[in-house]
């Protein structure tokens, strides 16, 4: 299999703070690739770089042969048509119905007649189990339905890669399972490459062919689910077991606290 996405030594700094440092990995075509990490670990920045919303300060981001870090605006526009994105809160246009949201990219990028677009929209909504919600506004449906509608929009133009930003956040376990099943289904039925950004370890293990664990902007571990589970690194163990104590410190150390109190 060939790599459809390749990141080489990607670095990004925001206001003097390093968000990503020397991040390199490749995603094979037709696989489910999961990027795991705690909040503030650099996952969202990495996603924004991969979908060309933000440019990396250094390194290469190659999507299906196009280097997004040096590409012209026109090349980026072309590259964007090869992928779809499921945003964290769906990012559906609130003034349009669910069906109009799904139809939007098709209307803009094809010259198909409205009747054909209607049929395509119905098929995409059926694929995500939302055909009965086509005339509803995004504000009239639940969070899980919004994510599925956003997924239908993301796959409207039959992309080769779909990026998912925290697909399970804010959802109940059943809705999470539905989204995870959809991600697996899209890979097996349409041959899509799925890149999932999440902190939900359970859904990551359900979906992933390969996993990357990001910690403070660097890759802490990479491998298949089995390799990650067998990894003895304390940071990886803590993330998998969800333990409060370990190298992933949420609170500052006692020494830092005393120094802070005494203004040292």
């Amino acid at each position: 299999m060939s790599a459809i996405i390749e990141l080489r030594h990607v670095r990004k700094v925001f206001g003097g703070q390093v968000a990503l440092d020397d991040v390199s990995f490749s995603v094979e075509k037709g696989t489910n690739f999961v990027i795991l990490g705690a909040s503030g670990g650099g996952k969202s920045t990495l996603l924004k770089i991969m979908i060309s919303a933000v440019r990396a300060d250094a390194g290469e981001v190659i999507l299906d042969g196009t280097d997004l870090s040096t590409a012209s605006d026109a090349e980026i526009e072309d590259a964007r048509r090869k992928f779809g994105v499921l945003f964290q809160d769906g990012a559906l246009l609130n003034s349009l119905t669910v069906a109009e949201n799904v139809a939007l990219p098709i209307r803009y990028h094809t010259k198909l007649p409205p009747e054909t677009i209607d049929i395509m929209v119905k098929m995409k909504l059926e694929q995500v189990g939302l055909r009965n919600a086509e005339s509803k506004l995004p504000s009239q449906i639940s969070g899980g339905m919004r994510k599925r509608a956003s997924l239908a929009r993301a796959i409207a133009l039959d992309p080769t890669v779909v990026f998912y930003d925290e697909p399970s956040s804010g959802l109940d376990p059943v809705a999470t399972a539905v989204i995870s099943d959809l991600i697996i289904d899209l890979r097996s039925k349409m041959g899509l490459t799925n890149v999932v950004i999440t902190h939900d370890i359970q859904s990551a293990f359900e979906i992933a062919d390969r996993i990357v664990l990001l910690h403070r902007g660097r890759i802490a571990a990479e491998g298949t689910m089995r390799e990650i589970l067998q990894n003895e690194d304390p940071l990886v163990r803590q993330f998998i077991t969800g333990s409060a104590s370990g190298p992933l410190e949420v609170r500052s150390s006692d020494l830092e606290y005393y120094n802070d109190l005494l203004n040292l």
Partner: protein
Amino acid sequence: MVSRVARTLALFFSHAGGMFHLFRRTLYWVFLGPFREKTEYRRSVFPLMEAIGNKSFGIVALVAFLIGVILVLQTGYMLEKFGQVRQVSGLVAITFARELGPLMTAIVLVARVGAAFTAGLGTMQISEEVLALRIMSINPVGYLVAPRFIAILVMLPCLTIFANVLGMGGGCLMGTTYGIDPWAYIDDSIGFLTVADLLSGVAKSFLFAIVICIVSCHMAFRVEGGPEGLARNTMISVVTSLVLVIIVDGLFTALQRNLS
């Protein structure tokens, strides 16, 4: 202190540059975009024109009518002292056509439409809808700003003309309390007004429409930091639009005076 001044200047030029850039891109999307790229103005402009024009008509009409009444109330008794009360019709007509009609309508639209543009598009910016458009290769300026630009550019001059008529109507009603016959008032108003007066007011309203749309959309795309940032940018958008409308009004009037 120096660094604060430098920061303020940098911010000023960043916003001024941003607005100019947005204006340039909007002009592209309004005039060239429809011939070169996919646009859906027919679908989006008419609902916006209704939201801007029809739904603002009531408040513009009320304000214009009342200002017409107040203007006659304030100036009528002074002119009466000199036996010139019939001149009030010309005073109201010219003041409205040249100044009050376009300015007051623009101020109402800054509050009603400009704030709504910043709040609406700013919410889309926060909820990643603008990013989603970019990712779908749909240009946010073409999809969101250009239809608003066209709608306000058409509706603000229309509302200004209505405001002129209603302001003069308010003056006419109040004129009856000074014993001026309404038909005589209307005749005098028409007699005093020139086409140049009316055109200068309408020309100003085009400029005001551009200012309101570009400032409010620019501030929306610059929203950062969630609802707090949205509230801050909406406030800045309204204040900046108001100040710029008055500055543009002053510059236009000065230019017009010099040319004539």
